[in-house]
């Protein structure tokens, strides 16, 4: 497995080098982001998921503890919610730990041509923290909705409400990192005097 990963990584770097030499920035971004994401999913995801899931469960549990509305068994990446006589255990597995989102964000960022290395490093740290907090807010919204309305609302809370909250927060992040940055950092073009100004020189 390891030789195959090393071979694939080398092939990816070579293709990136080719796109760079051929001045194909779009393909460099596309191939770079996808390759970096896959590489992180293969190499880092098994290492990071469990501690991240525990951290998410523990952080969400702190809010639950303060409000007295749900409980975290962080060693099992588990959040336990009760409403009346019903109960539900939410398991924070790799799909809800935020690990995929973090890798996706980093992949897009590190092959986004607009930022310098230092900027990318700073934005990476802020972005990872932001996604972590957004995920905790999402889980808190789901847990509180179940706590207030019971298990019947689980599907709505998880599939609609929680995701809307998470995606709104994600879009805000993406807007500031990718959309706004492109508009602000764009080249205005060659500087020329207008006809009216030239007449007065």
């Amino acid at each position: 497995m390891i030789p195959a990963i090393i071979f694939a990584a080398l092939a990816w770097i070579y293709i990136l080098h080719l796109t760079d030499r051929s001045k194909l920035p779009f393909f460099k971004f596309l191939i770079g982001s996808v390759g970096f994401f896959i590489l992180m999913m293969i190499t880092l995801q098994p290492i990071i998921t469990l501690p991240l899931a525990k951290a998410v469960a523990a952080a969400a549990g702190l809010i639950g503890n303060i409000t007295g509305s749900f409980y975290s068994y962080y060693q099992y990446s588990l959040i336990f919610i009760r409403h009346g006589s019903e109960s539900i255990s939410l398991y924070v597995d790799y799909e809800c730990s935020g690990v995929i989102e973090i890798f996706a964000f980093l992949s897009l960022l590190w092959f986004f041509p607009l930022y310098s290395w230092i900027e990318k490093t700073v934005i990476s740290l802020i972005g990872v923290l932001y996604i972590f907090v957004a995920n905790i807010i999402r889980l808190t919204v789901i847990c509180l909705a179940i706590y207030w309305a019971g298990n019947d609302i689980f599907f709505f809370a998880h599939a609609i409400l929680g995701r809307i909250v998470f995606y709104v927060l994600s879009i805000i992040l993406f807007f500031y990192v990718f959309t706004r940055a492109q508009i602000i950092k764009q080249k205005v073009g060659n500087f020329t005097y207008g006809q009216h100004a030239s007449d007065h020189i």
Partner: protein
Amino acid sequence: MKKLRQLSFLFVSLFVVLAFFNIAVYAAEDDIIMLDEASGNAYTPIVIDGSFSDWSDKPSSPIYYSASQPHTASLYRDEDNVYLRIKMSDPGYAFVGNQYKFLIDGKDYTFDIVASSGSIQNGLNNMDVIRSNGYQLVAVASARLYRQSGQPDEMEMMIPLDYFYRQPNMLKTITFSSSNLGTQSITATGVSTMPIFFVASGLVAIAAGYIIKMRKQKA
């Protein structure tokens, strides 16, 4: 932008206020292990051996009918198995193992938990897990029951997740209920973020920035 900020502030304020709005929990609070009361931070795997100490740091819930004392049930899953523990309400209420319904991602599986020897004796009992429909023994499952005079019966069982589905990591929601114990159900589930939408919104944000930039440059 100002309105958006005001709306965000309103939403956050409402969220914080409602978070402290408590709902009555109709159960013995002793059943809940609080974060700071949990017996340890270490991961304790469950072993089906008739000793129940490995359940002490897992959440449990009451199952009951309104007129009766609550039984205690714990449902737990890991990557490979689903586990269930039932503690009967009092010594006078003998273990009832019929019609244990597991709803696995919307599909019903009902089991009977019966003594391998035919009847439950004092001490440790090996139990068989049998599909109620067709009365087939689930050989990959295991269960133990402990009976001690003056103490309520306590049972733990395990079923491998690949018994339900070939790819256990694809299983999302497991719900347990038993009409012989009470009306409540216990659910163990994951809450996926649907990462594909996250990636898509990132790409849309990049594309939107690029389109706006090109339009501005043209203008």
